[in-house]
Structures are given as C-alpha cells and as structure tokens.
C-alpha cells in the first residue's frame, strides 16, 4: 500500500515540477519569443508558405473562428471518408479490417475531431494501421493543436486593449503542434518504445502458449499513437481496453510517464496563463483551486479503490490489493484511481482500468470530474471552460464588494455574462437531456440490451456516456453497448456541440474583452489573485456542478453507494 501511495505522490510531484517550465516555454511560443525549438521555424515557414498563409496577418475573433471551423470540418470529412473506405486502401491493413459502418464512422470522426476520443469500436478489430495513423494519430495532433491555439487566442484577447486582433489561428495552430505536442510526443514515444510497447507494422502474431493453445495477439505501431494520445488529452486507445492493455502501458514506469503526460500540458497551460499575462500569482490561485478539487477527488477515489469492494468483502476473500475488477496488478488500485481522476479531469479519456467496475463512489467522482470539466481540463479547452467559471465568479465577487465586476481591467457586462451562462448551461443541457432520453428508452424498453449492469449502475452507464461525450472526455462505462445507431448519432452530435460551442462562445467573449478599454486596478477593485477570490471561484465551480447534477448523481452512483 505504501509503495502504491508513493507512486501516486511521485506522479503528482513530477507533473507539477515539469509543468512550470513547460508553462513558461508555452507562453514564449505563443508570444513568438525566442525558444530553443526555433530550429523548427524554417519547416513551419515552409509549410505556411506552401499553404499561402501569412503568419503575421492579424485576424479578429470571427475570422479566427471561421478558420478554426473550416479546418476542423476538413479534418472531419477526411476522417469519415477514410474510416468508411479503409478496407479498400491497399497498404497498412495486415489484419484485413473492414469498412466502418456509417453511424459508427460518424461517431468516430466527430469523436476524434472534437478531441473526445470516445470509442464505440475496438481498436484492434475496428481500425487498419492506415486509419490508426492517418486518421487517429493525425487527429490526435491536430485536435489538440486546435484546442491549444484557441487558448492562445483567448490569452491574446485578455491582454489586448481596444483592439480586434486576437492573433493568427493558423500560425498558432501549427506552432502548437510542432513546438509543444511534437517534441514531447517524440520523447514520450521513445520511453514507451524502450519499455516494450510495440512499434511495428506486422499484423496479428500467432502465439503457441505454454498450455499448448494457439492465440492471436494484435500488435501495431502503438508507441507513437499512445504518446500523442496522452499528451494531447485525446485518450483514444490503440486497443479496446486502452491503457490497461500491456502493449499500451507496459509497466509502472510507462504508467508514470503516461499519467504525467495526461496532466502535463493542461497543468502547464495554467502556468502559461501566468507567464503570458505576467500574472503568476493569479495562475497560482487558478492552479490552487483546480488542485484542491483534483486532490480531493484523487484521495477519495484512491481510498475507496484501495479499500476494496464491500460486496466482494462480503464474500470473505482478502482484498489487500483493493478492488481489482477491471484493474491491472502492475498498476494497483491507487494508481488506477489516480489515473481515473487524471483522465476525467483533463478530458483525456484514456483508462488504465475499467471505470465501469470501479466502486460507486469513485465512479461518481469520475462523473463529477467530467461534469465540472475544468479541473485542468482538456488541452486549451479546459482552461477556456475554467475561464467561463472565472467570468461568473468575477461577476458575483465583483457585486459582493460593490463594483461593476471586472477581470484584469476588463468590465464584465451583460454580453460576457450571457456568453458564460450559455456555455456553462450547455453542458448540463447536453448531459441531462441526453441521459433523460436514454433513461426513458431503457425504462420503457428494458429488453433493448444496452446495459451491462442492472439498476443504478445501469443508469450510471448511460449518464457516464453522455457526460463523457459532452465533456469531450472519451472514457466510458464500457459495459454500455454503445455501438448502436442511437448512441453513435446521439453521442456524436453531443460531442460536436460540446466541443465547438464552448470554444466559439469564449473566443467571442475574448473578442469582446479585447475591444474594451482597460480599467486600472484600484484598491476598490476585486483582487482576483487573492485567497478570497479563490474561495469564490471554488464555490462557483463546485456549486454549479453539484447543483446541476446532484439529482442525476443521486440516482446513479450515490444510490448505488448507499445501497451497498
């Protein structure tokens, strides 16, 4: 148990240590300051030149958003096309994988374009190597790059004074991929490779087992895909069981690397905010608020997983390893709980244990984590979501001290509150309405066969699926039989709405803030980098999430927990 705990502490410690310099580096990249990776700029300039993009052209929020949407639409169309014709592509399909069915292809293309990576297929049977690389690996870079570049637009909006320019999306997008994601991915991929995660184009391997049976073992070019999957908060596994699979997560060292990779960029972006705006103390407050929630979640989930499943305890066996259903022995219960919280915090969605089989309390925490969707959050978009809570907190906090609310000198007025409210509202809307339709269907048609588990846990499976889709997370209570037209289309659509509206809204807000003049700070202004504001922010975050989802959680994990 103690070594398991040390492992958790080591992962968190290393993450935070590494995130600080990375945040500084990201801020420099966003600002175009000199960095070590400038040797890549000839390559970038060459790419921009052949695309006839002027990287210095300043664009307002609308042009930036149009560029982002057009580019993402192309990604989406490319992906759905390849998935539906992968059988006909002559190369890199040693296992002769067939074409994807249309609704599943729609779901998969939206899922990966939107950085969700919800998988209604199983990697080893559903995708050719061609698709794994030129759809999955590719989208895992560019969808993450889209998120990071969008955040750079927001940062710029916060420092601009009475200007429309938010920067150039194309340039920021390309640099997010080449300067942030690529170098880290290479390092992490090599670590993975050296620890025995396959990187080969060979097909299924036939194995003669010791017992004398013959089994097929799927391999593939795993290490590079898994590296970017973690770093870009993507989470789409190469294999069905994701990072529980020994080829996706070979040992405790790769588990540490992967877990750090999940958290690293989201945490670094919080610090990047501090460096970019030169408001480091404020970044610490944001980090502190997120980390309080994060650590609370980690410690409760780890406690519940380590102390085992009470229902199993009733069977009289010993549970020193903790609740082990759906977990791997090489990671143990504590590290699996940490991973679960990390992956649901950051909208990563990769798993190293089956969330469906975690104890009810942990399952509830994973759900709540995705319902908040702003504890570090997905690369770029996590901070953007968090920023919406900041707007609301600033508004309430400002009123509480008797000043028209302002954030970093920008007045928060009706337009900003409207956008923030709508963006925050969207998440419960998608989750609750989606789950309501599913629950209604499951109630009148119990034979529909969606649910792998009865009762409250079955409800949690549906709730989890929509929460994961709306939060662009991608993990699942995988017992849900989700590869049906209903789930494919519903979740696909939820993912699209849950991805793009919460980007467009905040960037419009950033555009409106950029156009405002800046109000100087006075002793009557709300001091956002104060502990008191941190409390308001934490309150807003927890209260909005808790109040929106408490009844739903009550009928799922809470009811299951108290009925044990």
């Amino acid at each position: 148990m103690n070594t398991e705990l040390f492992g958790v502490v080591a992962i968190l410690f290393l993450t935070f240590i590494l995130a600080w310099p990375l945040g500084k580096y990201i801020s420099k990249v966003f600002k175009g300051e000199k960095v070590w990776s400038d040797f890549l700029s000839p390559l970038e300039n060459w790419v921009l030149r052949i695309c006839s993009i002027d990287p210095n052209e300043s664009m307002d929020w609308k042009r930036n958003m149009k560029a982002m949407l057009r580019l993402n639409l192309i990604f989406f169309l490319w992906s759905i096309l390849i998935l539906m014709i992968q059988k006909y592509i002559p190369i890199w399909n040693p296992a002769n994988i067939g074409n994807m069915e249309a609704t599943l292809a729609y779901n998969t293309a939206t899922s990966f374009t939107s950085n969700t990576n919800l998988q209604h297929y199983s990697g080893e049977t559903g995708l050719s190597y061609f698709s794994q690389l030129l759809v999955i690996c590719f989208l895992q870079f560019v969808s993450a790059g889209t998120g990071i570049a969008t955040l750079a637009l927001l940062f710029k909006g916060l420092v601009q004074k009475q200007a429309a320019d938010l920067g150039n999306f194309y340039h920021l997008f390309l640099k997010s991929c080449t300067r942030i994601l690529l170098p880290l991915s290479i390092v992490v991929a090599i670590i993975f490779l050296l620890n025995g995660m396959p990187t080969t184009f060979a097909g299924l391997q036939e194995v003669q087992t010791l017992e004398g049976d013959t089994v097929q073992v799927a391999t593939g070019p795993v290490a590079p895909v898994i590296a970017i999957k973690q770093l870009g908060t993507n989470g789409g596994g190469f294999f069905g069981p994701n990072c529980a699979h020994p080829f996706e997560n070979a040992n405790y060292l790769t588990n540490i690397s992967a877990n750090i990779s999940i958290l690293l960029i989201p945490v670094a972006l919080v610090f990047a905010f501090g460096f970019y705006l030169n408001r480091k103390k404020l970044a610490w407050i944001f980090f502190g608020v997120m980390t309080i929630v994060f650590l609370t979640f980690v410690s409760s989930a780890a406690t519940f997983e380590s102390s085992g499943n009470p229902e199993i305890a009733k069977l009289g066996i010993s549970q020193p390893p903790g609740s082990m259903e759906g977990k791997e022995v090489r990671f143990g219960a504590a590290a699996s709980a940490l991973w679960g919280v990390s992956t649901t915090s950051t909208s990563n969605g990769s798993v190293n244990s089956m969330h469906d089989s975690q104890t009810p309390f942990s399952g509830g925490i994973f759900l709540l984590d995705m319902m908040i969707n702003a504890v570090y959050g997905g690369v770029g978009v996590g901070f953007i979501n968090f920023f919406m809570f900041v707007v609301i907190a600033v508004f309430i906090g400002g009123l509480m001290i008797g000043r028209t609310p302002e954030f970093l000198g920008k007045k928060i007025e009706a337009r900003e509150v409207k956008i923030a409210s709508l963006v925050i509202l969207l998440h419960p809307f998608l989750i609750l309405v989606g789950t309501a339709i599913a629950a209604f269907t499951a109630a009148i048609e119990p034979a529909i066969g969606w649910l792998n588990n009865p009762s409250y846990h079955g409800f949690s499976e549906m709730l989890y699926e929509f929460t994961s889709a709306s939060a662009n997370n991608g993990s699942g209570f995988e017992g849900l039989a989700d590869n049906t037209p209903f789930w494919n289309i519903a979740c696909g659509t939820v993912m699209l709405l849950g991805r793009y509206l919460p980007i467009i809204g905040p960037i419009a807000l950033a555009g409106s803030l950029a156009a405002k003049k800046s109000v100087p700070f006075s002793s009557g202004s709300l001091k956002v980098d104060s502990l008191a504001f941190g409390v308001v922010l934490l309150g807003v975050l927890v209260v909005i999430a808790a109040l929106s989802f408490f009844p739903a959680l009550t009928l799922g994990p809470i009811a299951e927990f108290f009925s044990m």
Partner: protein
Amino acid sequence: MKRPKNLKLFQSQIIKESIIASFVKLDPRLMLKNPVMFTVEIGTVIMLVVSFISLSPDSGQGSFIYNVAITLLLLFTVLFANFAEAIAEARGKAQAASLRKTRHETEAKLLLSDGSIKTVSSSQLKKDDIFIVEAGDTIPIDGEIIEGIASIDESAITGESAPVIREAGTDHSGVIGGTKVLSDKIKVQVTTRPGETFLDKMIELVEGASRQKTPNEIALTILLAGFTIIFLLVTVTLKPFSDYANTAVTIAALISLFVCLIPTTIGGLLSAIGIAGMDRALRANVIAKSGKAVENAGDNDTVLLDKTGTITIGNRKATHLYPFNGFGKQEFVKYCLLSSLADPTPEGKSIVELAAHLEPQIVQKTAKDGKFIKFTAETRMSGIDLPDGTQVRKGAWDAIKKWTGANGANQAEKEIEGKIAEIASNGGTPLVVSINKKIAGVVQLEDIIKPGIQERFARLRKMGVKTVMVTGDNPLTAKYIANQAGVDDFIAEAKPEDKMNYILKEQKEGKLVAMMGDGTNDAPALAQADVGVAMNSGTQAAKEASNMVDLDNDPTKLLEVIEIGKQLLITRGNVTTFSIINDVAKYFAIVPALFATSIPGLNALNIMSLASPESAILSAVIFNALIIPALIPLALKGVKYKPIGATALLTRNLLIYGLGGLIIPFIGIKLIDLVVSLFV
C-alpha cells in the same frame, strides 16, 4: 432641518398599498419582466390544476390537502416577491410624494411679449416662457433667473430653513418650482416642460412602470435566468430518471424542487433592491436621472472636488493680523476693520469677524463711514477713503508694492516679505494693508479645512477612489491644503478647461470620473464626467449636463452618492450568493424525500432527519417562501458598505452571506419541519 430621512421601514399605510399591489402584480404581463418569479407563477398554476387532479383517489399525486398546501405556498412565494417590489416602490413614492406636494397648481405671472403680465396656471407654462415672481409668491416651475436677485426659501425641497440668494447671471441662477421668494422681484425663464422636471423623472424611476433595468441588473438577470434554465432541466429530466429507477415522483415534489432551486430569493428581491437604491439616493436629497448613474457612482475611480465649500469651509478666513512699521495692534485692527466694513467679499467679512473677536470695543465705536473702494481687476486692491482723507488699502503684496512704491529695500519691507513667505508656505494667503501709502501690516487669510474631511478622504482611498482637489490657488498653497486635507492630487490655478482636461486624461486611462459643479462653465466637464452631480442652485446648463442633481447643494454629497452606488451592488451580489448557496440545504431536504421510499439507502442523505417526505418538501418550500419577506428589510436598507479594502470586504461578505447562506437554511428547514411534522 431636513425632511425625516428614516421613514419608518414599514408604515401601515404603505403596507396596505403594497399588499394590494402584490396581487395586482400577479398579472403575467408584469411578471414576465422577472423571469425567475414568472416561472414560479407558472408552477403555481400547474399546481392548481394538479390539486384538482389529486381529488381523484387514484391520481398518484398525493393528497388534495398536500397539493393545495404546496399551491398556496407557491402563490405566497410569488406574492412575497411582489410585495418586496411593491413596498420598495411605495416607499419611493411616499418619498417622492412629499416632494411632489410642493408642486400643486400655482398661479404664474406670465410675461407676454408686449410686456404685459397675464396670470395663468402653472401647468400652462411652456418651455422658454418668462414669468415674474415677487416677494411672497411661490415659484410655479423650475427655471432660471434672467433678471434680478432674490432671497428664496427652499425649505420645501431641501429641508434647509435658511433662505438662499439666487441671482441672474451667476452660478446660482436656478430656481425650483414650489419654493418661495422671500424678497425682491425676479424674472424667470421656464427651463423644463411641466411633467419633465428632474423630480418628475426621479418619481418615474422609483415607480416601477418606466423603470429601466440598469446594465448590471440586466447582466444579473441573465445569470439568474441561466440558473433557472439549468434547474428547469434538472427537474424535468428527473422525471424520466426516476421512471427508470422505478420511483414515482409527484408533480408537486418536482415543482417544489424546481421552485426551491431556482434563485427565488434574489429573483424576488432584485427589483426591490434596485428601487431601494434609488430611494436611498432620493432620501439623501439627490435626484438621479437614471439608475445607471447611481450604480456608476459606486464604480468611481476619481473624484474631482472643488476646494472651496467641499474641502474647506466656505471661503478663506482671516486668522491673524500682524502689524508692522510701528503701527500698534489696536490701531492696525481698527484700520483693517474700517477697510472691510463695506467689503462684501467673504474675506472682508472674515476680517470684520476677526476684528470683532480681537477688539470688541473698537467695532462698536467704529462707524460705517467714508468712501469704499471696490476691488477691481486693474488695481487688485480694495479699501476705504475715510472722511478725514486717510486712504486705507489692502491687497496682494505686489499690488500694494505698486501702490506704495515700495521696493522691498528697507528693513520693514524685508520683515514683511519674510512674514509673507512664511504665511504662504503654510497654506495661507497674505493680504498686505497700507495706510496712506505706508505699509501697516499683514492680514493672514487661511483656508479652514472642514472637520472630519480627512477621514472621509481616507475612507474614499480605502474604496479605491482617488480624490482630486480643484482650486484657483497657487500651487504652493494648493499643495499645502491638499496635504492637510489628505487628497491624492490637486489642480492649482485651475481654469474651467483644466477640469475637462483632467477628466479626459483620467478617462483615457480607463477610469470613471465623478465631479460636482454648479456653473455654466462647469457644464462641459459635468457632461464629460461619468458621474456629474449638479447643485440644485446651479445653472440650468450645469443641471442639464449632469446626471444627478443635489437638492441640498452640498458639495460633499458625492461621497454619499458613491456609497449608495456601492451599497446597491453589494446588496445585489450578497443576496445572489445567499440565494444560490441556499440550494445545498434544499437539496438535502428534498432529494432524499423524493426517493427515500423506493431507495431506502438514500435516507442516509436526510442529514437533517426531517420527519417525513411530505414534511420535508413542505418545510423546504415554506423556508423558500419565508426567506423573501425575511430579507425585505435588508433589501430596502441595503447591505452596509464598509470601506475595509476589497479583499477584506469580500472575505467578510463571504463569511456572512456565503457561509451563512450555507448554514441558515439547514437550521431554518429543520425548525420548520419540527412544526410542520405536528400537522402532517
């Protein structure tokens, strides 16, 4: 004497009116303005229908009595909210009515173009008409004196009993309808149409009908609407959720949950808070032209204050008399007195006062005799030529130097120059007196800083407001007074355009600037300032340009207005926080009640151990309804603003309204449950 400021919070007449109004306001068209309470009204109607349905024994909707109880409670929730708004309006109206009393129909002596006078009713006056008012007449309508000077009793409006002087062509040329001319005869031009005076506008603002929501109120309404939609979603989706869980939930339970969750407390009190803010401004004798102006006041970063009258008491006063050149003290005092007896300037009067204080017997003996020499821009001296031919002059040192031909060479002159420098560096103004072109001594004039003004500035600094003193004094004197009074900055030797430039400079930095003014030459600056407060005695141009008018002509009123603005926002913010955080306890009351029978495990959430599902739901709804009237006094009086710095204030309010809002409903609902469970 001012009108009683603290009207009792609940007067029986006002309460009666408000109760009636709360029913009138049930009109859905009026309710629509307040989306939060409108949804409660819809909920009430649905519950009414459900009550009838529940008469059927197999409706599954619970007992008839229970449904009726919920219906009534919801109705009361709406009524309480309406009552809050109505009582705020009624109090505003009462306040306005006491002002309006002054403007019943009076006769006006209209001056026709041929010079004849026609007596008409005041309501027939049009803008730009000219009328005559004589001693004993009541001024029929707001206007500006175009000819003459008069003393006027404005007590009906301001509560101040001492008469004031209003004179054409000065910065004090404005007269108000309803006030009374005590002496003299003036010619007045009508500046506003009847029904469009500032007071009329103000009355409209406190009466709900034409009340415009302020930008901040709109933003808050949007946020509250957002919360309402979220909770609508939560409640509506709970139905299929519980269907899946094989739990029958009644419509009454769902609607109760919904009404308890949506921010009814702030939703019900929001407009009352806004109206009460305007009312507080009115109570401070400030007429605001819009609610936004009051709110903006709370945001001020910079306040421009005239030195005279605001920071210092009236004008400079003589504080010391220093005889020189062999003149005796008594003799010097006498000549100072003689030269000032006929001097109408405040400085002159203060010399008389000082002389009377120093040598009372001389004053009695000295007759007002001789030829008074008025101050002119050319000589820059004033004085008197006595019947015996003695010429007494007083003025600035350089003017006296010119008059006496002194060159500062002799010993006495050097001594005087030393004294003059000493006085100036202490913020005083030296006035040199010469008798028959011989320098006789120096009068020290000093600004008297208002007692308590330093504390007020310190308070403003804590609020984050920068104070700027505007004065015609030279920089040295200005600096001294600025330091004494504790202002942050000053504009010395100020010309009217300097104010304007300063405002523009501050606004360029993004600051909100407030100023107070009265003269026509202040008008551009008043218009440019984010909050311009004109004195009621000021010119029409100044009043038009500003967004508030101070009936008391009190230059320190700005400070009060700023606090009223802040109070308004704080009250809104804190009631919002309180309202939303209340939901936590309500969840713990209602959610276990909804499911406890079908999912016994969830009884663990019933941490208040409420008696039964029905009593739990009733208690939560009762608490939710009662908290509105309970907070009406707070809404009307406003949360007290404490200038303790933003972060300290936030911490304090978080503890009171955040933590309080978390704990109080747990206690409240439990207590109500103890009572309700006796009946259910």
